[in-house]
């Protein structure tokens, strides 16, 4: 999801809603990605009517990692499909 447009900064709530995962699962995962240098985060500049929120996007290494994972998943999907198909 973050890999779909690595340059775009995203909010935690949007990511949670879009991925359909709970915040309790997502935030520790985001923190681990940041630990591994795959995710960068920053505070939004405060606007007049609201307080700043935390924003996330993949680093270059994170984008490469996500792309590799997607490719691997596709290869795995192709490799397992014939076996799963009824004979």
């Amino acid at each position, binding site marked *: 999801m973050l890999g779909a447009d690595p340059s775009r900064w995203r*909010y*935690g*709530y949007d990511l949670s809603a879009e991925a359909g995962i*709970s*915040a*309790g*699962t*997502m*935030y*520790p995962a*985001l*923190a681990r990605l940041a630990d591994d240098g795959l995710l960068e*985060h920053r*505070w939004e500049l405060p606007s007049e009517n*609201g*307080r*700043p*929120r*935390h924003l996330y996007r993949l680093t270059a290494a994170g984008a490469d990692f996500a792309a590799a994972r997607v490719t691997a998943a596709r290869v795995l999907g192709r490799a397992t499909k014939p076996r799963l198909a009824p004979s």
Partner: protein
Amino acid sequence: MSGWRIVGRWLVRALPPEDRCWGEALLRELDELPRRQRPVWALALLRLNAARMPSARVGLWLGALVGLLVVAELAYSNLGPGSAHPSSDQAAPVLAAYALLGLLFVATGFVQRARGETLADCARTTAIMAAVIIILAFGSSLVIDNVWLHTVARQPDKIDGFAHSPVFQTMRVYLIWTNVLGLLIATPVGAIGAAALGALGARARG
């Protein structure tokens, strides 16, 4: 400041400094959310703490486990057969239970250190454990004493204690006061003592 926000701020502060931005981020999102979605996101803060602070997680879980055993024992000794004459706090089985608890703190510190935790984290684990156990014990005691007042009020140690405390007008007020005071004193003292025992265990592991 609302109750959940105070708890939230406390949970953020409990995170290691480098991880507090994640907790702050969750709190900011919480502010923007509709009221009905807030409990789920507040729970997320708890899960973040558990995930990012292993020593706290171990302390909470072990404390809850041992605390529930203590609660069960308290309920049995106060309400079960023979509850009219429960063991005195100086009785051998009670003292043995305290000694066992002390050994458990030392062992926890030892094992946590073996898992690669720092000395401070080992002490923090056992401090949290002790605090959880004490809060559960005094909390359940408060409930038992109030709900089953007529049973508890027949115990000789309670009668004696109440008789020697002329400040209190009723047995209920006396029991509430002793439990609340016990909780306020025993929690920090117990946590400090348990932290020392945890550190001792960790030190023994090297």
